């Protein structure tokens, strides 16, 4: 336990924030995700967030909430949210929660950055 935090990472490319999500995206790991992204967005102008789900094998509704929370903030500046590396399981959860109404899925990081 506790390994999951080591996998959570961030990269700012221009005005885009890439969030490398942990293996288990639940309430616990979402707590630091919220803190970190809020801090980055306070310091830097960000108008696009891209979530990398490549390493994420588990997600629950707290993960949905974490994406929603970021959407609420970035939509105030007209920003957008993209995801890539989505497994069939994560895709099923995102679909079930109706998330594709507000986020866009890409095949690769490059595509997500270009869009």
């Amino acid at each position: 336990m506790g390994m999951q935090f080591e996998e959570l990472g961030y990269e700012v490319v221009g005005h885009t924030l890439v969030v490398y999500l942990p293996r288990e995206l639940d309430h616990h790991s979402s707590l630091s995700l919220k803190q970190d992204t809020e801090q980055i967005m306070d310091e830097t102008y960000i108008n696009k967030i891209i979530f990398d789900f490549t390493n994420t094998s588990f997600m629950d509704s707290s993960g949905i909430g974490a994406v929603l929370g970021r959407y609420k903030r970035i939509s105030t500046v007209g920003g957008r949210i993209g995801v890539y590396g989505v497994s069939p399981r994560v895709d099923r959860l995102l679909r079930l929660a109706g998330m594709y109404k507000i986020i866009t899925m890409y095949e690769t990081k490059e595509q997500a950055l270009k869009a």
Partner: protein
Amino acid sequence: MDKNLEQLKIAGEHMKLEIESRSHNEEFARVVIAVFMARLDPTIEEIEDVKTAVSEAVTNAVIHGYGGGEGTIYIEARTFQQELTLSVRDKGIGIEDVEKAMEPLYTSVPGGERSGMGFSFMEAFMDSIEVISKPGEGTTIHMKKTMGQPPFR
């Protein structure tokens, strides 16, 4: 499967787990249940479904039941033939209006960080769910799932 395990599967098995109400125990609880249910020969998808449901129920106890404070979460699981029965109980603040709490997108927590999909996911991934709660007396969530059924789509 050896003969001894086959007999246990028919007779059923039972486990209890008591954990402190902390966010890092959400993963602990779902991993324990995943190992316990493995003896029912579930598919990967069935394991993932149950892990998600357990995570939702334990997270509800941590965030809503105990409000992020101290408390104990009581988890019980039973196998009988192909069926897994689960309960997650807290002795926290309870839910005033269970029907409302179970509505999709409903959340009692302000701040936009909760999706309000917890009960919806439990309903989607388990065969049945029953929520028993009384304000001031805590909440018990009972769930069931039979392995080897066509998966939910």
